[in-house]
């Protein structure tokens, strides 16, 4: 490199920059937007905790609704929600992860089938949940369920609203979330991990099973966590497919109907014969739903943290 003289500057730059007015204003606006979120969460949680805490008795948690739901507990709804969410995850995660593996590992990115699948996934994510409810009623109950009954020569066992159909409908609703997060998780596994495995003579499937999936598991769990939070709170999809207004017993078979916290909240807040008597129960039910979701999330988050630590070689 040879040394050259610098080209001359035409005229001096403006010495004092103009006063920055927009900057602080935008800082304030964005700060306000962020602060509002915290405020709203605080109001919701505070309100629910304040009015709901008093209802948290053992009788409330373990009893069944009494006197037209103006007294008693919500245990059937807690049990039903847990059963629903667990069944949903069992159906959802293998299906969603399978689809993600296909999309990421096997599908040719520009094949029409791949594009059709991606198009379907992104559109599925935009379908309103009430439509899923109607779909569940039409497809799972009236089509699949009735055909099972007819072929098995049963009266009406499968062809009616039931826990299994509600869980499958919810699973369908959450499928896009799980597929997208699982695919993202597979994508973040470093390429040299895949190459190391293949270069050792592992087959493609062996590589997926022993290298990619274990490393993608924390990300897959994130998808499952999101779907659990959403699944526990959605009412519309289970309205027609299995949730019961009131049941004095617990579901013991996938073909039973069940009570669910979200639906129970709806029932308490709209169908009560005595609003004032129901109010504490309503607050208590909301609090339980929030706590249950929180508990499920917390479990999954701890599990994920442990997996991450192990992958990073710290455990």
């Amino acid at each position: 490199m040879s040394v050259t003289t610098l080209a001359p500057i035409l005229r001096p730059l403006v010495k004092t920059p103009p006063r920055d007015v927009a900057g602080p204003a935008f800082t304030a606006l964005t700060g306000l937007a962020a602060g509002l979120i915290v405020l709203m969460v605080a109001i919701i949680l505070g309100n629910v905790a304040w009015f709901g805490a008093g209802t948290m008795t053992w009788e409330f948690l373990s009893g069944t609704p009494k006197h037209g739901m103006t007294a008693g507990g919500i245990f059937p709804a807690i049990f039903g929600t847990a059963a629903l969410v667990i069944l949903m995850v069992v159906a959802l995660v293998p299906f969603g992860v399978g689809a993600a593996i296909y999309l990421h590992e096997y599908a040719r990115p520009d094949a029409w089938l791949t594009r059709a699948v991606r198009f379907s996934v992104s559109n599925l994510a935009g379908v309103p949940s009430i439509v899923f409810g109607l779909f569940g009623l039409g497809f799972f109950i009236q089509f699949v369920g009735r055909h099972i009954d007819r072929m098995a020569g049963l009266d009406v066992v499968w062809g009616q609203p039931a826990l299994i159909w509600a869980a499958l409908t919810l699973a369908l609703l959450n499928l896009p979330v799980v597929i997208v997060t699982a695919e993202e998780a597979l994508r973040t596994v470093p390429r040299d991990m895949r190459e190391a495995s293949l270069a050792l003579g592992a087959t493609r499937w062996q590589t997926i099973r022993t290298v990619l999936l274990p490393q993608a598991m924390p990300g897959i769990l994130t998808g499952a966590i999101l779907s659990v939070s959403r699944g526990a709170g959605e009412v519309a999809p289970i309205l027609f497919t299995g949730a019961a207004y009131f049941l004095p017993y617990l579901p013991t078979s996938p073909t039973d109907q069940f009570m669910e916290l979200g639906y129970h909240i709806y029932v308490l807040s709209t169908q009560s014969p005595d609003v004032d008597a129901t109010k504490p129960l309503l607050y208590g039910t909301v609090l339980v739903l929030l706590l249950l979701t929180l508990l499920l999330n917390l479990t999954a988050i701890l599990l994920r943290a442990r997996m991450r630590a192990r992958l990073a070689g710290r455990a």
Partner: protein
Amino acid sequence: MPTEAHAGGVAGARLGTMRSPMEPPATIEPLVTMEPPMTMEPPASVPPIAGIPGATPPMLDTRDYSLFYGTHQALRQVTLEVARHSVTAIIGPSGCGKSTLLRSFNRMNDLIPGVRTEGQVRIGGRPVDATDVVELRRRVGMVFQRPNPFPKSIFDNVAFGLRMLGLKDRAELEARVEASLRRAAIWEEVKDRLERSALQLSGGQQQRVCIARCLAVEPEVILMDEPASALDPTATARIEELVLNLKTAYTILVVTHNMQQAARVSDHTVFMLNGELIEHDETPRLFTSPRQKLTEDYITGRFG
């Protein structure tokens, strides 16, 4: 041959399931009987000059081999022969196609969409494309630029390839893992923490674990893609020493940016430029009296 072929008393004590003291790694019976039986040739103490047809068939060879990434041609009619039990270094500036050539021998380029090839790549005289890719990759091991152990224990890393082959017997796995770690000259450093994560090791140790992982499935050829470029000088020296030891039993192909390294470890050196093989000769001759002007310019630092 391993450098430390002594009986591992400590090892035997640690690996409690093994009744007899460890025997030298070399005596462990071959994992899979191979066809064709190409381990029968006499030890080539002085490797025949590649490129000149000798008595022994080349371990690896390419003939008019071209490779395209879409429309970009990465390799141009490369013809190369690699002798058995020798170290061949491939040098050249970035983007000259040396890694691409290396990855042709275990078909890692198959993973990249839009790759098209012409000509032939052969292992032991057989086209690699006609070989089952899983079998090929077991016979042709690979060590990568960045140490890439799996986020598993040291033991599980080295046992990985064996388990993929269906080996389940714990005692045999332990024996083979130890033998591989010994061959990779890392056994003494890790024997007391085989169940710890391989990610806790230093970069140089990780790379030797990766070499052990590759040796465990008993390859005939080891491809090394700049195996020391991410390591410090001490770790680099250990890897180079290891390469010199391993060549008595394996055919090694090393891609390197470092010409001193090529001069130190290799019997033959290949110089590549813009996808073309410019010169291939015995290492001392290539570095002292190159026949091609381009080679001379490169090794004297005029470009690259």
